[in-house]
C-alpha cells in the first residue's frame, strides 16, 4: 500500500467538466449589463514626444461614452518591482512621450467594440519623433537616446554574482574556451489574449476587476498604485485563465484603462487585446547577448565559469530585472562550479519589454552553456553524457551565498538516462544525433520585489456540517492544474476525497494573500499553506476522535479514507463525517476552520527547493534543406514526490513543446522597433505533426521543504529542449550554433561552414 491515498495518483483535472463542455468562463467570455467596450490607441513610433492629442472628433461619434488621454488618468506609476519605486515605470497612458511602438496614448469606451475601433481612427495625435534605440549594445553607448530620464546609458538593472577565485582558477585550467551568443526573443502566446473587465461602483467608490492574470494579488497591488486607491477598495477576480506562461504577471494597460474608463463612465468596461496587440505590446522572453568563458581540467571537471549577459530589456521593467538575475543562477545548475562570476545588465530600449517567461531566465542561459559544454567535451574527447555526470552536484550542494539543493536526484537521473538511451536508441543512422542537456529549476521564488507585508501564500479551510470542505485561496490555476493539486493536498491531509472539496480560488476578496502562479511556486508554497490549514482542522478532528474513543494520549491517529483511526490499530476509528458533526456541535455550531500560511525563511537567495534532471533528444538533419526533425525525446526528472502524475506529464510535454519552439522556429524579428510577425500566420508555433513522442521517467526524491515531499514539476524541462536539439545536430554533423531558432536556412549555413572548415583542415593536412 502506498503511503498516500491521493497524492501520487493520476488524477483528472478538477476543472475538467467545465472545460470540456464550454461552461468554463474565461474573462473574455464575460459580459455585464450596461457594459461598454474599451480600446486603446497606440503609438506608431518607437520613441516620440507627444505634442498634442485632439480627441474631439472621437468624442462626437455616436456611441462613444468616454475618451481619455494621459492627463485624464490618476497618473500613478506601477511595476512589479514595487519595492524600488524608480523601477515602477509603467503608466496607463503615455503623458510626455511614447517609448515603443504600441505604447498606449489614449483610450476609448463605447457601446460596441466596432464604435470604439472607429473612434480610435478619429483621434489626432501630433508626435515629434525622437531618435530611438533597439539593441542593448547600442543602448549602452554614451550618445544613445535615453528611454527613461535618470537612467544613463539606459541601464535598467545590473546583476553581479561571484564566488570562489575565478581568475586564479582560470589561470590553472587545462582547457579554456570562450563563446559568444545572440539569443532571440520569443512570445509566450497564451491562447487567451490579455483582457479585463472592470466595474466601478459609483455608490461605494470600490472597484471590481476580472482579468486574465497569473496573480490577482499583483494586479490588486498595481491597480492601487496606478489608480492611487487603497488596495482594500479593489477586488480582483481571476476566472479561468487561457494560458499564462509568465506573460501574465505584470499588470497591463488593459486592466488599468478598463478601470479608469469604468470610473469615468460609471459603467462596466471591458478591454480585449487583438492578437497583434498581444504580440506587439505584451511581454515576451527577452532577446540577449551572452558571452561565456569555461575552464576545465583535462578530465572534464569544471574549475571556473564566467558569464556576461546584456539583455534587450525594452521600454519597461516588468520582471526583467529578476530574469536577469536568474539567468546568472540557473546557468550554473546542476553543476559543481567552484569558481563563478556573472555580470548581467538589462538595458532599456525602444521595443516592447521582456520579462519572466516560462523558465524564468533559464532558457537563454542554458542554451549557451549546454551547447558550449558539448563543444568542450568534444575537444577533450569526453562523452557528452559523461561530462555532465562528472560535474553534476550531490544532495546538500551549496553555491556560496546563492542556493542549496536539499533534495537532489541529478546523479541517479543521469545514470538512468545512460541506461535508457542505450536501450531505446541502439543504432543512430546517418545524419542523426543524440543531444543532452542537464537542468535544474526553482520551486517558487524567495524574492519580495512586490513588497508584500503578508505571507507568501495562505489558505483558509471551512468544513461544513455535511463534511464538504470549502477551500479558499488566492492561488492561481492558469491551466497548469493547480486547482487539482490544491484539492489533492487538502484531501490527502484530511483523509477525505476530492469529491468533498469545493474550491474558491483566485479572488482577492475571498482569501488571504498568495503571490500567484510564477516561478513554479504554487505546488510548494500554496501546497504548504493548504496542508497547514488542513492539518489544523485534522488536529481538531483527532482531538474529538480521541475523546470519543477514550484513547491514550500516546497513541497517534491518522486521517485516511474518510476516517480518523489509530495508526497502529486501524480498526479503532471514527467516520470523518461523524467527527465533523461532533466537532461543530462542540464548537457552538461554528464550522471547523483552519488558516494556513507559508513563507520561506533561510533558504538562500532563490528558492526553497529545486527540480532537476536530464533530457536527451534524438534528431535528424536534412543536409540539403537544413530541416531539423526532433525525432524522439527522453527526460529523466527529479521532481520530488509527484503530486499528480497526469498533470506533471502534461506540464512536461507542454514545456518541451515550447522549448522546441524556442530552438526551432519562434522568433520576434523587428525593423526599427516594429515587430514583423505579429500574427500566428508568421509567428510559428509547432503543430501536432511537428511534435515527437516524449518518454518521461522520474527519479523520486523527498523534498523536505515541500508538501508531502513535493517540489516543482516540469517548468525545469523547458530550458533543456533547445540545447538538447542543437547538441543533437552538433553530434549529427558538427554544425555549431551560437543562437537559438534553428530555421532551415541557418542550419544549412552552419552545415556549409562546418564543411568548409573540414575541407580547409584536410587541405592543410595534405
Amino acid at each position, binding site marked *: 500500500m502506498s503511503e498516500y491515498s491521493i497524492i501520487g495518483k493520476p488524477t483528472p483535472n478538477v476543472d475538467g467538466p467545465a472545460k470540456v463542455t464550454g461552461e468554463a468562463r474565461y474573462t473574455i467570455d464575460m459580459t455585464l449589463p450596461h457594459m461598454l467596450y474599451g480600446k486603446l490607441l497606440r503609438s506608431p513610433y518607437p520613441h516620440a514626444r507627444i505634442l498634442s492629442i485632439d480627441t474631439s472628433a472621437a468624442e462626437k461619434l455616436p456611441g462613444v461614452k468616454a475618451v481619455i488621454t494621459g492627463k485624464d488618468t490618476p497618473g500613478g506609476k506601477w511595476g512589479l518591482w514595487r519595492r524600488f519605486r524608480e523601477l515602477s515605470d509603467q503608466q496607463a497612458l503615455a503623458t510626455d512621450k511614447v517609448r515603443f511602438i504600441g505604447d498606449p496614448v489614449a483610450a476609448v469606451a463605447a457601446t460596441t467594440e466596432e464604435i470604439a475601433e472607429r473612434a480610435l481612427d478619429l483621434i489626432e495625435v501630433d508626435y515629434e519623433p525622437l531618435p530611438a534605440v533597439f539593441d542593448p549594445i547600442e543602448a549602452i553607448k554614451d550618445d544613445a537616446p535615453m528611454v527613461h530620464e535618470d537612467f*544613463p*546609458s539606459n541601464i535598467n538593472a545590473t546583476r*553581479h554574482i561571484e564566488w570562489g577565485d575565478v581568475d586564479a582558477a582560470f589561470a590553472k585550467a587545462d582547457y579554456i574556451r570562450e563563446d559568444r551568443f545572440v539569443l532571440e526573443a520569443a512570445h509566450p502566446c497564451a491562447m487567451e489574449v490579455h483582457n479585463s473587465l472592470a466595474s466601478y461602483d459609483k455608490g461605494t467608490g470600490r472597484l471590481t476587476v476580472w482579468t486574465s492574470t497569473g496573480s490577482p494579488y499583483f494586479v490588486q497591488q498595481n491597480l492601487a498604485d496606478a489608480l492611487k486607491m487603497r488596495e482594500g477598495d479593489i477586488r480582483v477576480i481571476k476566472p479561468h485563465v487561457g494560458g499564462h506562461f509568465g506573460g501574465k504577471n505584470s499588470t497591463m494597460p488593459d486592466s488599468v484603462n478598463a478601470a479608469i474608463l469604468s470610473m469615468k463612465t460609471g459603467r462596466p468596461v471591458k478591454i480585449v487585446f487583438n492578437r497583434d496587440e498581444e504580440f506587439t505590446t505584451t511581454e515576451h522572453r527577452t532577446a540577449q547577448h551572452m558571452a561565456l568563458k569555461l575552464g576545465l581540467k583535462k578530465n572534464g571537471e569544471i574549475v571556473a565559469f564566467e558569464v556576461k549577459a546584456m539583455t534587450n530589456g525594452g521600454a519597461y521593467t516588468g520582471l526583467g530585472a529578476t530574469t536577469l538575475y536568474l539567468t546568472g543562477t540557473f546557468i550554473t545548475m546542476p553543476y559543481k562550479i567552484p569558481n563563478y562570476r556573472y555580470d*548581467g545588465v538589462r538595458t532599456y530600449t525602444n521595443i516592447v519589454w521582456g520579462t519572466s517567461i516560462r523558465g524564468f531566465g533559464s532558457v537563454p542561459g542554458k542554451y549557451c552553456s549546454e551547447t558550449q559544454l558539448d563543444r568542450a567535451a568534444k575537444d577533450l574527447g569526453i562523452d557528452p553524457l559523461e561530462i555532465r555526470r562528472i560535474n553534476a552536484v550531490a544532495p546538500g550542494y551549496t553555491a556560496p551565498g546563492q542556493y542549496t539543493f536539499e533534495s537532489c536526484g541529478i546523479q541517479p537521473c543521469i545514470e538512468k538516462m545512460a541506461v535508457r538511451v542505450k536501450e531505446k536508441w541502439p543504432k543512430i543512422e546517418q545524419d542523426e544525433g543524440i543531444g543532452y542537456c542537464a537542468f535544474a529549476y526553482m520551486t517558487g521564488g524567495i524574492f519580495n520585489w512586490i513588497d508584500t507585508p503578508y505571507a507568501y501564500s495562505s489558505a483558509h479551510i471551512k468544513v461544513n456540517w455535511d463534511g464538504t470542505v470549502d477551500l479558499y485561496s488566492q492561488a492561481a490555476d492558469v491551466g497548469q492544474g493547480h486547482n487539482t493539486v490544491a484539492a489533492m493536498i487538502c484531501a490527502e491531509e484530511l483523509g477525505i476525497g476530492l469529491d468533498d472539496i469545493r474550491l474558491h480560488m483566485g479572488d482577492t476578496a475571498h482569501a488571504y494573500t498568495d503571490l500567484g502562479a510564477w516561478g513554479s511556486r504554487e505546488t510548494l508554497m500554496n501546497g504548504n499553506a493548504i496542508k497547514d490549514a488542513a492539518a489544523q482542522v485534522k488536529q481538531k478532528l483527532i482531538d474529538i476522535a480521541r475523546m470519543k474513543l477514550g484513547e491514550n494520549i500516546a497513541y497517534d491517529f491518522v486521517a485516511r479514507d474518510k476516517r480518523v483511526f489509530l495508526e497502529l490499530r486501524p480498526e479503532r476509528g471514527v467516520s470523518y463525517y461523524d467527527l465533523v458533526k461532533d466537532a461543530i456541535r462542540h464548537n457552538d455550531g461554528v464550522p471547523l476552520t483552519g488558516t494556513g500560511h507559508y513563507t520561506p525563511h533561510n533558504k538562500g537567495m532563490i528558492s526553497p527547493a529545486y527540480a532537476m534532471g536530464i533530457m536527451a533528444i534524438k534528431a535528424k538533419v536534412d543536409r540539403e534543406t537544413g530541416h531539423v526533425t526532433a525525432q524522439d525525446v527522453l527526460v529523466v526528472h527529479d521532481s520530488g514526490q509527484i503530486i499528480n502524475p497526469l498533470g506533471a506529464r502534461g506540464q512536461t510535454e507542454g514545456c518541451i513543446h515550447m522549448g522546441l519552439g524556442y530552438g526551432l522556429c519562434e522568433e520576434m524579428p523587428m525593423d526599427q522597433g516594429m515587430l514583423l510577425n505579429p500574427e500566428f500566420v508568421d509567428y510559428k508555433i509547432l503543430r501536432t505533426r511537428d511534435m515527437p513522442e516524449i518518454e518521461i521517467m522520474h527519479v523520486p526524491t523527498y523534498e523536505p521543504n515541500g508538501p508531502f515531499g513535493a517540489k516543482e514539476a516540469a517548468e525545469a524541462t523547458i530550458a533543456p529542449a533547445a540545447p538538447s536539439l542543437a547538441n543533437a545536430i552538433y553530434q549529427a554533423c558538427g554544425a555549431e550554433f551560437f543562437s537559438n531558432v534553428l530555421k532551415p536556412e541557418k542550419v544549412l549555413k552552419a552545415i556549409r561552414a562546418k564543411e568548409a572548415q573540414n575541407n580547409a583542415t584536410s587541405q592543410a593536412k595534405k
Partner: protein
Amino acid sequence: MPKYRCPMCRKICSEHLDLARHYLGQTDKKHKEWLKTQGLSYAELIKAQVTEFGNKGYEALAEVLKKEAVVVDEG
C-alpha cells in the same frame, strides 16, 4: 582588520572590491552622482564589467574607493 564604509550609505565591507560590487548594485541617483565627482561614469564602469571577461569595472571603482571610502574601526 579595517573595514570600509560606502561614501554614500551605511554599507560596510572588509574588501574594497566588495564595496565596489555593492556600489554598482545601487540604482539610486545619489550613488550614481557621486561617481561623477570622482571622474567616473556609472555607465562606463558597468560597460567595462559586462562587455569583457574579468572584473574590470569593479576593479576600477575599487581603486577609487581605496582612497575615498571611510575606514571604520574593527570594533
